[in-house]
């Protein structure tokens, strides 16, 4: 593989394209990009401190809340190039690649590789919180979208984009339950994160990582803080619109990190 890298790089520069095709052909490497795919690492916090399930916190509305479950889908990742155009990875309607289920109970789910991007510099990242409408209405899916993951409504078709459950003394429900499920058509939301201080570099031998802070407290904040005494049980699309508008604000770029990529075999 290493022997290939020199001509491949030249080909990327626009010359010796023919040689690259031939070499890729005999090397078996195909047209896979040589540069490591950027990694997205989500740091889930509550107002600056690490966020943890089963730990009581106080919401911006002054209510006590203990989260027992936090899960959400992220999908439709695309990177903005320095020149303002987009790199949009190809998607396949038959595959769940490009759909990520983040689960606060599984720390490993908060760090994942984005779709491999071509060598270059990027100024921002866009993604969707939730599952797009076409996929929401498609047939049986696998992987992150497997309905067995418990993020699929069965009494009315559709994925649950975002699920936050817990307990609060403010909730009048049995066992002080709080159940906030946002799902269905029209309720996924697009988030755009600008890399303000420096561009994201995708290059051979370099592992770029985007560190994003997910401040769960901000879901409860905003101009009109969420009051669990009033909003404690939401489980259908039509009533979830105000909640969907809240999860757009959860994400913020903390910093970008570039380090030498571990040598690959």
């Amino acid at each position, binding site marked *: 593989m290493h022997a290939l890298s020199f001509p491949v790089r030249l080909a990327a520069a626009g010359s010796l394209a023919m040689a690259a095709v031939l070499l890729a052909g005999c090397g078996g490497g195909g047209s896979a990009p040589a540069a490591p795919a950027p990694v997205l690492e989500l740091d889930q916090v509550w107002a600056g401190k690490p966020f943890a399930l089963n730990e009581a916190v106080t919401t911006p509305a002054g209510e006590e809340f203990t989260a027992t479950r936090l899960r959400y889908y992220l999908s439709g990742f695309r990177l903005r190039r320095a020149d303002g155009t987009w790199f949009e990875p190809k998607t396949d309607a038959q595959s769940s690649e490009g759909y990520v289920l983040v689960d606060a109970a599984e720390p490993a789910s908060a760090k994942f590789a984005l779709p491999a991007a071509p060598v270059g510099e990027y100024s921002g990242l866009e993604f969707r919180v939730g599952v797009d409408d076409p996929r929401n209405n498609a047939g049986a*899916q696998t992987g992150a979208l497997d309905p067995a993951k418990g993020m699929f409504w069965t009494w009315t078709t559709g994925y649950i984009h975002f699920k936050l459950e817990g307990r609060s003394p403010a909730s009048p429900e049995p066992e002080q339950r709080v159940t906030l499920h946002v799902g269905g058509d029209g309720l996924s939301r697009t988030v755009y994160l600008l890399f303000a201080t420096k561009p994201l570099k995708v290059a051979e031998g370099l592992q770029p990582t985007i560190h994003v802070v997910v401040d769960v407290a901000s879901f409860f904040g905003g101009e009109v803080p969420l009051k669990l005494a009033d909003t404690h049980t939401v489980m259908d699309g039509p009533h979830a619109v105000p909640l969907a508008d809240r999860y757009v604000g959860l994400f913020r770029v903390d910093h970008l990190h570039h380090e030498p990529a571990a040598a690959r075999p």
Partner: protein
Amino acid sequence: MSVRGIVAGVRVWIAGALVAALLVAVLAGTGARASIGNARDRLIETVESWRAPSFAVPAGWPKPVYDFSGNPVTRAGFALGRRLFYDPQLSRDGSTSCASCHQQFAAFAHYDHPVSHGIRNQNGTRNAPGLFNLAWQPALMWDGSVHHLEVQPLAPISNPVEMDESIEHVVAKLSADDTYKKDFAAAFGSPGIDSQRLLKAMTQFVGTMVSAGSRYDRYTRGEPDALTATERDGLALFRARCASCHAEPLLTDFSYRNNGLDAAPRDRGRETVTAKEGDFARFRVPSLRNVALTPPYMHDGRYDTLEQVVDHYADTVQPSPTLDPQLAGGVTLDAAQRAALVAFLKSLSDERFVHDRRYAEARR
């Protein structure tokens, strides 16, 4: 005897010999104590299974909504779907299969059950509809709450008053069963059991249930004698008074409407899905194919007979804000017209469909 006659005779002889040989083979397989009746059933089963399952659009019908090109029907996939449909393991306590509420002799409705009757003797709130021509249905259920045929089984599996299971657990149960491991591998060409495979196999079974073989169909395909004079009168009336909603050839236009059952309806119907006030108490216009086989009638199974249904349209349509304007004031029908309509509705039964062995429970 002409040459052609001889050839035909030889063909008959060969076919006879084949059946005889098969009978011997099957009898041998059943063992000495097996009854002849059982052997006969197995013979029929074997012969019927030669007819490969497939999906075909009847002449003159619209393009189906479900696209089988993403889930090609194969013999092994269909057989797996059939096994799953009849398997009570899909319910929490192993008591209830899809077929518990969807019986073939009733065109896969739940015969004589006004509302569904599921696990631990619990009742639901809606009548189990017949299952056929599902590939044409843009959405499933009385209120259209399920958008895609493949994911439909998730609803009954996880409904606490139907099968009360989780798909996760069903997959785990089947994965522990060697015979299912074999069946899934045969159906999909590689080992592995997951929800997608399960749902696709079930869709090969329920999605290929096509019913287009009633006497009414033979009539519309050019056999004038397939319907009696009274039934033909009924058809004419039906086309004038009913087909605006129960549109030919599927006998539904798949819209959601309120046909005036109650002045103060309790079930919110389509509104539960769309949250639109105007959808209150609207339900999908049901297909009337096989309707004589699927009593009781309406989303809550309130009418036992077709006579009662026709009387409803004539005498008891209730005004309410979402009542369909076409039915305001009811439909004027005299006694002879009512009888003709009922006679026509009874000509919509597809005997071949309800006796198609491929859709019956397989003998294993």
